[in-house]
């Protein structure tokens, strides 16, 4: 700053305008596609496909009504919720103990396991999808929701363990020691002392797993073949085939899917960030 007398952290009016201007533009860019989809979902089909620019045109809820009553959309929502919830419960349950062990004990194999978690992030869908597909086929699980849960665990478990490790790292070890002195074994310490303290961490990991499963496309496209068993990520593609896509229904269902996800997101995001960064930096 040119004037040394200015209060620390203060800035000139020009800088202020530039700062707020940039942030406002960025916020508008972030917001606009969402608003546009919401607006489009309220238009009748012919207005969605019109080349004339209009923010609001003949507003109607007919698209929502159609999607909710005439299509398999509600079914897909149920499927997605089932798959995502199952992945969440199983994934969180098994990764919590691992995160705890990685955070507290220096056991042989610990470093390797941490490295493996990183490496698994590199595995492309393409290399795993076929073998997992053939395994599922052999077990007779193709075209079942169970196959998706199993496949999503491969994505969720390494990352969740990593996040849990970050959370447990931030919980003071003196609590563990106190519990040990009072006669708690390692499992009891984990279950009675540490896990309850990590409740926000559990919430966030659960949320992350849920969203991963909620939005997955590749496995769902490859494993599921019957309309009534689609999850949302695949089902939505049915609205917009190459010929005669029906964007009005797509936008309506997009809004319906986003509302619950968005609401939950805002409760979790603050923790999500701190969990992510602490896990990442204390590696």
């Amino acid at each position, binding site marked *: 700053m040119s004037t040394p007398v200015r209060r620390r952290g203060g800035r000139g009016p020009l800088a202020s305008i530039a700062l707020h201007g940039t942030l406002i533009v960025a916020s508008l860019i972030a917001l606009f596609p969402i608003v*546009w989809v919401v607006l489009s979902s309220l238009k009748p089909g012919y207005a969605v496909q019109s080349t004339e620019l209009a923010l609001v045109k003949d507003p109607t809820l007919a698209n929502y009504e159609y999607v909710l009553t005439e299509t398999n959309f509600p079914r897909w929502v149920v499927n997605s919720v089932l798959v995502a919830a199952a992945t969440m419960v199983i994934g969180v349950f*098994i990764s919590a103990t691992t995160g705890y062990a990685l955070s507290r004990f220096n056991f042989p194999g610990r470093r390797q396991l941490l490295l493996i978690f990183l490496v698994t992030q590199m595995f492309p869908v393409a290399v795993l999808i076929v073998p*997992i597909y053939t395994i599922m086929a052999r077990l007779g699980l193709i075209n079942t929701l169970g196959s998706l849960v199993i496949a999503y665990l491969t994505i969720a478990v390494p990352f969740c363990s990593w996040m849990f490790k970050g959370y447990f790292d931030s919980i003071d070890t003196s609590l563990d020691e106190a519990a040990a002195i009072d006669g708690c074994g390692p499992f009891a310490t984990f279950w009675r002392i540490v896990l309850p303290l990590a409740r926000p961490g559990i919430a966030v990991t659960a949320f992350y797993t849920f969203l991963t499963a909620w939005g997955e496309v590749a496995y769902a496209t490859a494993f599921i073949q019957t309309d009534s068993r689609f999850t949302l*990520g695949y089902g939505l593609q049915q609205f917009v085939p190459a010929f005669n896509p029906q964007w009005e229904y797509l936008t309506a269902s997009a809004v319906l899917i*986003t509302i619950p996800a968005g609401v939950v997101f805002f409760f979790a*995001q603050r923790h999500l960030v*701190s969990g992510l960064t602490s896990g990442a930096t204390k590696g």
Partner: protein
Amino acid sequence: MRLRRFWDRYWYAWAMVAPVVAVLAVLIFYPLGRGIWLSFTNLTEANQLEEICTRSITGEEDCQPNPNAYEFVGVDNYIHVLRGDVGEFWQWFGVTLIWTFACVVCHYLIGLGLATMLNRRLRGRGLYRVLLILPWAVPAFVSAFAWRFMFNERFGLFNVVLSGIGLDPVAWFADWRTSLLTAILTNVWLGVPFMMVALLGGMQTIPAELYEAAEIDGATPWQRFVNVTLPGLRSVSTTVILLGTIWTFNLFSVIYLVNAGAPAGQSEILVTGAFRAAFQGIRNYSLASTYGVLILSILLVYSVFYRRALRKHGEVW
């Protein structure tokens, strides 16, 4: 006896990691091993049966070995893929590099810029923060559809606006460059919030005294940014850039849903190209595995170099 002591000391730690190790072994490493093996065979949907069974009139099953069963073919798949006989490996590889580089650079720079602004004291910070994180709250596939909708060549928002101000509408999906651009724009929009928030988290761990000391020494805001903020973000940055690169490299849904590789598969990245090559028409499992192994090798080489570069700068990680 040593073994015994070892076991006594560590059994509970091992017990705690056992379920995850089991999941990793069964669902990642076994499939990985099998995937590598499949890439050396010619397995497709058509020749996957090892035996062909026919039911005779009496109800007995008569099984004979399938004469066309899949077999070991050595490195044939790799030769086919790398020579471009099946799919367009080099085109897709180039696209993947452009895609990954453009996305990660934009994510990081925009994220860093926004995080720096949000890290200052300013009015309405909470509101800006919430608005800027919004794209993260929408499931990725929904956003992908939304952007494809906006890039629609006939009635999409962008072309309507372009013709509205008297310019020619762009046939976004007719050329692989513009087609890729649509996907990159979508993904930048999607990915900036994560970067921003991760970097903001990192910035908040930098002690304020460092900034005060720099200010007393007469450092300009730019100098403070370069000499205090950036070094303070080192560990967060290296992690998010590494993870961001890997995730973007393997990001399936955006390319698959936004531009669908248009035109004629030229703007596919390796992951989606492999998926399409393998799962459309007769499913070619061995081909998909070959691509998968190649992708994995590229990423492994990349991360080894990345780590080495970090180590040179004295980062232990």
